[in-house]
């Protein structure tokens, strides 16, 4: 879990880590003005199921080394993985899942950071 003042730094770090592993369509949304309870989403597309797992593993391992661990979640889908870092929630999705659930479309008013 991160503190609010650290959230933007974490968003930047997550984006860097995802780019390192060739994630596509990496986008961060600042939801604070459009949601009363959400802060930041980082969205990224994986090109395949193995790529999705690789992105998840890379992100978890690198951030764990820096002392940042996600909150436990109940289970993951082969098409959609969520890593919940408190104020920053990361959505890793296959292309089909990203199009299908269209989180960016739902929060279209959110500022990109």
């Amino acid at each position, binding site marked *: 879990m991160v503190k*609010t003042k650290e959230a933007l730094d974490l968003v930047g770090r997550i984006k860097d880590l995802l780019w390192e592993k060739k994630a596509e369509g990496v986008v961060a949304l600042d939801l604070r003005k459009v949601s*009363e*309870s959400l802060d930041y989403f980082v969205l990224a597309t994986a090109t395949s199921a193995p790529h999705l797992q690789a992105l998840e593993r890379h992100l978890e391992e690198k951030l764990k080394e820096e002392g940042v661990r996600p909150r436990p979640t109940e289970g993951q889908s082969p098409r959609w*993985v969520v890593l919940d870092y408190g104020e920053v929630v990361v959505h890793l999705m296959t292309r089909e899942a990203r199009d299908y*659930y269209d989180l960016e479309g739902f*929060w279209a008013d959110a500022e990109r950071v």
Partner: protein
Amino acid sequence: MRPRFSFLLLGLALFALGSVLSWPKSPREEGLRPKRVGALPEMGVVVAARDIEYCGHHTPCGPGSRTDTIFYLRLVGGEVKGVAIPRDLYSPRAGGKINAAYGRGGAEVLKRAVEEATGLVAERHLILTLESVARIIDAVGGVEVVLERPMRYTDRAARLFIDFPAGRLHLTGEEAVKYMRFRHEALGDYARLDRIKEVMGQVLRKAQNPATWPALTLALRAAWQELDTDLALEELLPHLPAVRGLRLSLATLPTREGPGTWLYVDEEARRGFLSAFFGAVPPSSPPQVAVRLKGAPELLAWAQAFLAQEGIGAEALVAEVARSGVYTKDPEAGAYFADLFHLPLLAPHGPVAGVVVELGRDLLQ
């Protein structure tokens, strides 16, 4: 961390999702393109859960045709209002108790029986199995309850063994189903319906957390394989984020007792209830009712200060609270405080003096 009071709300993801849309089935998910709709359509959904079927003595063998749990849910804009229907209600349409309606004519007869009981239009149906309910509860991480006294019941024929100690408990999906099936207490089936409302409130609130969405979508896909419904999952799932904005109000249909275990619709009470419950609009100024707050000391202090800003005095009572919600028999006052605290309105069957606002630690998560 920012205050998170406003992302509380609203339960059974499946129920909520089931009430979100009414589009026809689509052949394949892959062929779909998400189409954002504007306002969610107004619609009535009958949600029921099938009990256990017996193939022989002490041999439960899967979902049966009796539905002991029946709710009528009405989606109005971003709000779900639901009415629990007691299983022992006499249904002329079913020719017996309403819990037999599904077995006598499937979902269509059940919908007509619910319409007859409530006087409300039921366009859609979602008939669950107990396994699917458990699966969905597990997908959101289970639920928490606080038992004032131990809950124990053994039905060897049904292979139902309930043994929960008093106190705060975290229940898995399977355990939560047992908790919701238990009715061996003074208020019997009414208390069971109140427990179901409580679980629905918790599950929908948890389903509003995006971290639960991948697991929830998997659970829903599995559950949909065994459901009887005319709601297409492929059209529902793209609207998952809309669950975040849903507000939930649940109550129980007023009934009067008949001979034996039979219940009848209390026509006069029903008219007043439906008009007040479905027509309730939060008043612009605080309603003149007694307000009691229950919960942990730090939450009580916050809530008292919050209410004082609105010019509302409230009695505070330190208590163990598992789930946050607004409890009252007064729909208008309930709507006001549910809106103020962004909490579900869970009108219990039993008497409540004024308005009780229960504040659990879930508010701080």
